[in-house]
């Protein structure tokens, strides 16, 4: 990866995740004149407006017209340009999905969709602005890679990596500030490769997005209070999913929890479940997420607690799962 960005210098505590995205896109835009930006009356809200300020001629605010926006981006990609398109996650993946599907993914065009206000991060807005379906939807779009960064620094890494990876990529970030997790950019971010945050042999917690921070907190408490060694994987890439890391977790810990700010159907939990089922190995397994319902409203932290995808929810689930039986595998003597 041709790096050299200065985003490690960014004071990540002072910038919201989307502001970091905007700043990184400006830096990339400086070096790569093929980058063009798009928004649909949400330039300010998604922070792609920073790119607009710097490169007004390379930015298009198409008004409140998401379908048109993705169509125009597809046309530009056909001419060899690299569109970065930003709107709220729900509008990127549902309002304009046919354009995303047919104009972009089907034609395998080099369009980067950086969607903000993902999951329940715009909690007070209600279900028209919650987005707990996007990972499921985008995961089933052939050619498309799907990334859910854990915080601002990981967002910076993901956006940069997306530029250097040809084809359609969907990156989902939150509204506002995320709990900062990574304190520097050099921890070996690679699309499709999970980051092992804690070592552990009793249970594995596989998380993405805002749940990563919560998972590590839970692992620390499990270690200190329960004497349990929990492995935490930051599974920032939902597709292609890191099969190797999942199989290793099955092998080493045989107890797995997934946790995501998304419907339990179709997202990270489902992707992990598919790998586990395919392995033929017995495993105690639980998916934490939004239980196939339209969410109540409120602050993001409150909703994470309500749906038990926060530290306490993960702890509760881990303690239950540690006591759960699963069918043992006679030939599987190499269990740690």
């Amino acid at each position, binding site marked *: 990866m041709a790096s050299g960005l200065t985003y490690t210098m960014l004071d990540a505590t002072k910038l919201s995740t989307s502001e970091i995205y905007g700043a990184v896109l400006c830096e990339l835009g400086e070096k790569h004149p093929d980058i063009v930006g798009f*928004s*649909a*009356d*949400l*330039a*300010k*809200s998604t922070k792609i*407006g920073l790119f607009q300020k710097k490169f007004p001629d390379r930015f298009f*605010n*198409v*008004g*409140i*017209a998401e*379908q*048109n926006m993705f169509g125009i981006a597809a046309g530009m990609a056909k001419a060899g340009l690299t569109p970065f398109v930003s709107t709220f996650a*729900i*509008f990127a993946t549902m*309002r304009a999905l046919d354009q995303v599907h047919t104009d972009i993914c089907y034609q395998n065009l080099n369009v980067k969709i950086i969607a903000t206000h993902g999951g329940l991060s715009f*909690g*007070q*807005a*209600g*279900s*028209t*602005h919650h987005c707990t379906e996007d990972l499921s939807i985008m995961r089933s779009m052939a050619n498309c890679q799907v990334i859910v960064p854990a915080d601002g620094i990981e967002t910076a890494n993901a956006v940069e990596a997306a530029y250097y990876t040809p084809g359609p990529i969907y990156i989902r970030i939150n509204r506002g500030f995320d709990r900062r997790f990574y304190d520097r950019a050099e921890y070996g971010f690679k699309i499709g490769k999970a980051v092992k945050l804690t070592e552990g042999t009793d249970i594995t917690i596989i998380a993405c997005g805002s749940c990563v921070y919560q998972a590590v907190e839970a692992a620390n408490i499990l270690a200190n209070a329960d004497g349990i060694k929990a492995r935490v994987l930051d599974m920032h890439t939902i597709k292609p999913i890191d099969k190797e890391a999942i199989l290793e977790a099955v092998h080493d810990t045989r107890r797995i929890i997934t946790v995501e700010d998304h419907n339990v159907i179709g997202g990270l939990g489902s992707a992990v479940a598919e790998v586990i089922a395919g392995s033929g190995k017995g495993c105690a397994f639980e998916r934490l997420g939004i239980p196939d319902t339209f969410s*109540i*409203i*409120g*602050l993001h932290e*409150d*909703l994470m607690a*309500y749906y038990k995808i926060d530290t306490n929810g993960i702890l509760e689930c881990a303690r239950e799962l540690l006591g759960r039986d699963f069918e043992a595998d006679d030939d599987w003597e190499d269990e740690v």
Partner: protein
Amino acid sequence: MPISVNERLILEKKAHELRLLCVNTVMWAGGGHIGGALSAMDILTILYYKYLNIDPKNPNWPDRDRFILSKGHIGVGFAPVLADKGYIDKELLKKYNHTGSDLAMHLDSLKVPGVDASTGSLGHGLSIAVGTALAARLLKKSHMTYCLLGDGECNEGSVWEAAMAASHYQVTNLVTFVDRNKCMIDGPTEEVMGLEPFAKKWEAFGFIVKAVDGHDFMQLSEAIDFALEEKSAPVVIIADTNKGCGVDFMEGDYKWHYGSLDSEKVEQAFESLEKYYQKRKGVSRNG
């Protein structure tokens, strides 16, 4: 029947009270889409206090007039109206946006009585309104459907798909409003994505256009009366309005699309609204 001077004054007072309640709601909620709520308040007021045939005690009454708030982001303006009409307890406004509250920025039709459609994703409302109006025709019901759109919202192609259908099916038991406050989130509408010639666009889609001052109850009522009578084509009322109407530090400023208010700002807003109300009361075209 055009409204009398007396009726106008009653509506002025109601709109004023609702603007105050809207400002308070934004404060209680910790933030809200106040600019577009205040620009639309006179339209909401005249509909809810003059035209809509509804029964707040029986919100699902099948023969009620329907109101589809297509610019669904102005829950902080709509909920005070519903509370004042008695659909919901006014006390609930104090918990607006709070975790677990039934009142979110965009109102949920399954949670809030009186809300005919869950909106918030722009560009959906007119299609739903065409649907409820066509259903009324099919079921031989005489009720009307009213729909309120934002002007920025009219960037959405789906609005024009609905407009095409409304005129194709000659849907005349429908009255469409556009809150033409000339602002959207990222700037003035004509800078972000030009709409003009706006009236001509509606005409080209088969609508009869009534252009009115959206803060003048006389003009609004004349236009609505016209629309209720007109059976040759659907009518759209393009209401020229000011974003943040009545609050001097918000008026006409697109940056007040969404905002939060501390008690000091609320005080300032109240003062300004009071002055605005006095001015409005004084203006009388027929008295």
